[in-house]
């Protein structure tokens, strides 16, 4: 189970802020899952400058997701 959080423009694009995805074991699996359900969002999170955080730590590449993992998709940060 993965709890996905969206921020900034990604949240507006998808129309949701938070969603639970069942049956995903790694980040690549989650991305394919999102691509089937939300193709526009999948394209946006593949765009330049989008970073991923797993349990509030930035990650690169594929990582495995354990139960109750929180995944955040972070568009380019704007600063305060």
């Amino acid at each position, binding site marked *: 189970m993965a709890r996905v959080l969206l*921020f*900034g423009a990604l949240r507006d694009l998808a129309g949701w802020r938070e969603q639970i995805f069942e049956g995903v074991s790694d980040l690549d699996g989650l991305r394919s899952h999102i691509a089937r359900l939300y193709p526009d969002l999948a394209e946006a999170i593949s765009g330049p400058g989008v970073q991923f955080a797993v349990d*509030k730590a930035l990650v690169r590449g594929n990582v495995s997701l354990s139960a109750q993992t929180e995944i*955040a998709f*972070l*568009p380019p*940060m*704007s*600063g305060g």
Partner: protein
Amino acid sequence: MSVTVQTGVFDAGAALSAFTQALPDAGGVVSFTGIARMDNGKTQMLELEAYLGFTEPWIETLIEEARTRFSLSGVRVIHRVGSILPGEAIVFVATAAAHRRQAFEGADFLMDHLKSRAPFWKKEHGPDGARWIEPRQADYQDLTRWTRDQTPK
């Protein structure tokens, strides 16, 4: 050394008094308050989003870097999130050090990094609708002033 990310309005003057009173041995205290601009009516409201639990540790790492680099004896950062109206304070940074130069530079360093790299997402609401804002080129340019760049990525 502390950071607060909050939705509520804050009083920068009161924050500065509290900060200064807690540091009786500081030789100098510098503070900066960033205020939401109206921009000739183009901005009616700013919406600022943070990733709570991620944004604060990022700022804490930045504070720690500023503290060691500028020998600061105290740092306070308050940052608003949520809906912010023109005239309201968005950010407050205060630094304390034995000597004025360190306090000035520490505050300047903190603000340059908070304005360009910090994990916030900003949306401007105006008469023509809303749009997400990215840092200006000038904000990134300001960062190059601090060439020994060890900020959290």
